[in-house]
C-alpha cells in the first residue's frame, strides 16, 4: 500500500502545479475515545520521536499536563468530566492535536510560500524553515491547534509523523498506545474499523455513537470514535460543525492582493531601515535550566 509517498498536492501561497504522476491512498489516524484511558503514552512518544521537550510545569487543578498544546507539545490529552444524562458521570478523555483536514484552513490562510503543504496521502505538514511566524494559520485553523514556539517564533503542530509514514512506519503515538485506542491505516480501513466499534458502542447503550469526520473541512485524516457523536462539544469543546473561518475566505479572495502589497511595502520599509540603522541586537534567549 503506497501510504508513504511524499508527493505534495498543495503548498501554501504557491501557484505552480503539483505532481500527480502517482496515486496515493489516503491515510488516517483513528482515535477511539471509548478505549482511551488517558495514560499520555502518546504524548510521551510524540515528544520522544520528535525530540521536543515541553517545560516541567505546574498543576493547575486538573490532570491535563502540559496544560495546552505548545511549540513542544504537539498533542495533549483533554479530560472532561461530564454528565450527558443527569447523575451519570462520564470521564471523556480526548487526545487533542492536528486533525489533518482535507481542506486545511491553516494552509489556505498561510501567506508564506511552502510553509504549509499537504501530501497526497492527506497529511498536512508545516515546513518551519519557510514559516514567517505570522500566526495566520492559527486563525485559519477551525480546531485551534497550531502554536507559535517561544524558542524560534515559528509555528508547530503534529506532523502525523510524516517522516515515519514516509518509511512505512506508523506514527509514534500509534505505536505507543497500549489499549488500541489509536489505530492507523488507510482512511477507508479506519472507517470500517470505526463502524465495528460503533456497533459495539450502540450495544452498550450509546445509541448516538458515531464517527467524527467533519464534512465542513472536507473530512479529516485524524478521526474520532465518539460515544456521543451528536454532542462533540462534550469532548472538551470539540466543534460540532467546524469550517474555515470566513475571514480566511475573505483573505484568500479580495483582500489578499491588497495584503500582499502591504507586506511588500513593509519589507521594503524594513530594508531601508536596515540599510540606515543596521541589524537589530537580539539578546540570546535564556537557556533552559
Amino acid at each position, binding site marked *: 500500500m503506497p501510504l508513504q509517498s511524499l508527493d505534495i498536492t498543495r503548498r501554501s501561497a504557491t501557484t505552480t502545479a503539483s505532481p500527480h504522476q502517482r496515486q496515493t491512498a489516503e491515510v488516517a489516524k483513528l482515535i477511539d475515545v471509548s478505549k482511551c484511558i488517558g495514560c*499520555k*503514552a502518546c504524548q510521551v512518544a510524540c515528544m520522544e520521536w520528535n525530540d521536543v521537550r515541553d517545560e516541567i510545569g*505546574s*498543576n493547575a487543578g486538573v490532570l491535563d499536563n502540559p496544560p495546552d498544546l505548545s511549540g513542544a507539545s504537539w498533542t495533549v490529552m483533554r479530560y472532561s468530566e461530564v454528565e450527558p444524562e443527569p447523575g451519570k458521570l462520564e470521564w471523556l478523555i480526548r487526545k487533542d492535536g492536528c486533525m489533518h483536514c482535507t481542506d486545511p484552513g491553516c494552509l489556505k490562510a498561510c501567506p508564506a510560500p511552502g510553509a504549509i503543504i499537504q501530501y497526497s496521502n492527506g497529511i498536512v505538514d508545516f515546513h518551519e524553515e519557510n514559516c514567517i511566524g505570522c500566526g495566520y494559520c492559527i486563525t485559519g485553523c477551525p480546531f485551534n491547534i497550531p502554536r507559535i514556539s517561544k524558542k524560534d517564533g515559528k509555528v508547530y503542530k503534529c506532523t502525523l509523523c510524516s517522516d515515519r509514514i514516509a518509511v512505512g512506519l506508523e506514527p509514534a503515538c500509534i505505536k505507543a498506545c497500549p489499549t488500541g485506542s489509536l489505530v492507523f491505516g488507510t482512511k477507508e480501513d479506519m472507517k470500517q474499523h470505526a463502524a465495528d466499534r460503533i456497533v459495539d458502542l450502540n450495544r452498550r*447503550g450509546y445509541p448516538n455513537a458515531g464517527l467524527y469526520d467533519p464534512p465542513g473541512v472536507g473530512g479529516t485524516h485524524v478521526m474520532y470514535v465518539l460515544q456521543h457523536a451528536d454532542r462533540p462539544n462534550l469532548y472538551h469543546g470539540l466543534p460540532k460543525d467546524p469550517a474555515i473561518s470566513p475571514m480566511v475566505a475573505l483573505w484568500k479572495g479580495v483582500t489578499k492582493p491588497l495584503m500582499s502589497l502591504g507586506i511588500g511595502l513593509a519589507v521594503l520599509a524594513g530594508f531601508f531601515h536596515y540599510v540606515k540603522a543596521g541589524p537589530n541586537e537580539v539578546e540570546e534567549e535564556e537557556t533552559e535550566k
Partner: protein
Amino acid sequence: MASLAPTFGRGAMTNHWVDIKNANVIVVMGGNAAEAHPCGFKWVTEAKAHNQAKFIVIDPRFTRSAALADIYVPIRTGTDIAFLGGVINYLLSHDKIQHEYVKAYTNAALIVNEGYKFEDGLFSGYDAPTHKYDRSSWVYEMGTDGYAKIDETFQHPRCVLNLLKQHYARYTPEVVANITGTPKEQFLQVCEILATTAVPTLTTTFMYALGWTQHSVGSQMIRAAAMVQLLLGNVGMPGGGINALRGHSNIQGLTDLGLLSNLLPGYLTLAADKETDYQAYLDKRTSKPLRPNQFNYWSNYPKFHVSLMKAWWGDKATKENNWCYDYLPKMDMGYDILRHFELMNQGKMNGYFCQGFNPLASIPNKQKLIAGLSKLKFLVVIDPLATDTSCFWENHGEYNDVDSAKIMTEVIRLPSSCFAEENGSLTNSGRWLQWHWKGQEPPGEAMDDAAIIANIFLRLRELYRKEGGAFPDPILNLTWPYKIPDAPSAEELAMEYNGKALADLTDPKDPTKVILKAGQQVDGYGQLKDDGTTASGCWLFSGSFTEKGNMMARRDNSDPSGLGNTLNWAFAWPANRRILYNRASADPTGKPWDPNRRLVWWDGTKWTGVDVPDFKADSAPSEGMSPFIMQAEGLGRLFALDNMAEGPFPEHYEPFETPIGTNPLHPKVVSNPAARVFKGDFEQFGKTDKFPYAGTTYRLTEHFHYWTKHARLAAITQPEQFVEIGEELAKEKGIKAGDMVKVSSNRGQIKAKAVVTKRIKPLQVDGKTIHHVGVPIHWGFKGIAKPGYLANTLTPVVGDANSQTPEFKSFLVNVEKV
C-alpha cells in the same frame, strides 16, 4: 499472596494477562488497572471489543479504569469485605452457584471441627492480651480413617457450605449499603451480573492490586473475592480466576525467589528458632493428604529443600549433616519491613542494606522512618538513582526538614545498573519469566546488582577466612561456581535456579535407563530428588533453563487455540502452565465445562490440551483426584482452615483509622483483632474529631513509584504534587481547583495543589456523610519533577495481619485551604 495460597494452593495470579480477553465479565476492584497497568489493560479493551465482555469497576474514586467501564460503583475505602460478603450472601440465597463445581472442587461439603465458633466479631480461640488466635479449632473434623469427614448431601450443620451461609447471612444488601456507602440498587446490579456467570459456559475475572493488599484486612479482601469465584465455578477456567496485578515489573519474581524474611526460594519456609530438629522441620512442611487419592503436592517438600541446600552448599551438604540445615538462620520473629524500622528506632538494628528499594518513600509514617535511619551506624544503598532514602539526611526545607548536623549515620551509595543495562529475567504478574537483554552499558562506575553483591560477598568471605568468627562455615562453604567470581552472569544464576543432576539420574520405571547425566540441567522439578543427587536454587523455576537452552528467551507467539496460551513464549512457572488449576476447567468426568473454551481434558488415557495440565497426567477422572493439587485435600478452600491470622472466613473489620468510629456489625470489635500494632504507633492513630475524612493513597499512570520523578518526560506529563477532592467537599471548605491545600493526619502534613473533581462523590455511611481525599504518591525531595512531600508522611503504621503490608489505602485526614 497470603490469601491465594491458603485458598487455592499457590500465591499468584491464577490466570495471565492475555487470558483476560476470554472473560465475559471483568471486575476491577481493589485496583485501577488502566492507571497502574496500562499495557496489560489492553486485554480488558480486547475482551470488551471482541468478547462482548461487561466491565465493572468498584472503587471509591471514578478512576481511569472507570472511564471505560460499563458500570462504575462507588465504595467506601476499606469496606470491600462487606461488599463481597454481601455478594456471597446473594449468590447463596438466590441459589446462583455452580453446584457441580462447588460440590466436586471446593471444600463446601467437608465438616468443620465442633470447636469452631464465630460470635460478636471474634472467631474461637482469641487471646485478647496478645492479639492472637489459637487456631486449633479452625480445622476439619477428622474421621477414624484419618481423613477429613464429608457430607455430600450438605445436611450436616457444620459442613463448610452451611457455616458459610450462616456467616454471611448477616451481610444483607441493607447492611452492605450501610457499611460501604454503595447504593443498594447498584450493589444488587453487580450481584446480578456476577450471578450470570454461575453457569459453566460464562466466566467472571477479578483484577486487583494494591487497592486490596494495602489494608489491615487486605489478605481477607482477596480471599473473599476468591471465594466468590469458587462459588461461581470460575477458578481454573479461561477468562476466570483471581488476578493479582503486581505493582512492580518483577515483584512476583521477588516473592518466588524468597526475598521475604520468612521465606526460602520457591515458597519453602525458614525454620523458627525452636525448630532445631531437621526431620521435624520437614515433617511439619510435608503435608499429609486430608482426603483419599489426592496428589498433595507438598509431599515433595524434602526433594525441593534438599536440592536447594545442594545448590547452596554443594558437597558440604550431606545426609549426615542434614544437608547443612544448621547453616540456615532460624527466626525468632518475623522481620518484615515495619519491624525493621521499629527495631531501628529501638536501637536494635544498627546497619541496613537497601537494594532497589526506597523505604523512606514506601513505608508508612515518614517521621518514624527518619528517626530510625538517623539511629543507624551505617546505611548502604544500592540503586541507579539518588533516592530519597539515600539522601534522608539532607535538609530540603519543608519537604525534608532534618538537622543534618545531628545525623551520624554513614551512608554509602553503590550505583547499580538499570533493568535496560543488564541481562536477566523479569517475572510478570502472570508468572511468565521473560528474558531481556542488555540495551547499553551502565553509566560511570555503576555495576549490575549481582556484581555488587558478589564483591561484597568475596570481601566478607576473605575476612571470615582470615579472622574466623563465631560461625564462619555457612559463608566459607557457600558454593561460588561462577566463571568470573566477582561478576556472576545472569545466565549462570538462571541455570543454578533451574537445577542440574549431580549424578546420573535413571528412569524410576527402568533403572537401566539414564535420563540425565551428571552435570546436565534438569527438565523440570519432577526430576528433583531428596537424596542429594540433584541441585536446584529454586524448584519453582525448574524447566526455565534446561539442556535445550534458555526457555525464558523464547519468543514464539503462535496461539493455535486462540485462547492466548502461547506455550512457546517465554516460560511460566510452574512447569510452563499458563492457567493454574486448569484441571478445574473440565468437569469431574474430564470434559471441558465450556466446549468453546477447551483448555485441558482427559483423552481416555491421559490429560492433554492446549495448556500444560495442572494435574497428575495419568490420573483418570475415576480415581477421584481433585484439581487443587497443592492442597492436602485437593479442594479450593471456602473455609481457609488455620491458614489465616484473623479467621477462616473473611469478616468485615474497619480500617484502624475509621471514619465512622465503629463497626456496625459488631461495635465491640471494630478493627482487625489479629493485626499487630507496635506500642507508640497505636497512640499515633487519629480520630474523626480532628481528621474527619477518609484518606487514601494511590498511583498515577504518568509515574512509576518514586523513580520517574527523576525522568524528564514523566515529570513533564505530571510535574507537581496534587490531591483530589470532590466538588461537594471543596465547596464546603472553600477550595477551588488549583488552590494550594494542606492535608494532615495525626502523623504529619503535606501541602499540594487541589484537583477538584466530580469523580469523588460523598457517600452515605452509617448515617454519616463520608468524603474521600485522594493522595497520589509520586513526589518527594529528590528528582527533577517539582519537589513535593513524601505522601507517607500521612500514613499509619499498621499492616495486614498475615503479610504486614501497610494500610496505605485507608486512614484519616483533614484538608484545609492554605
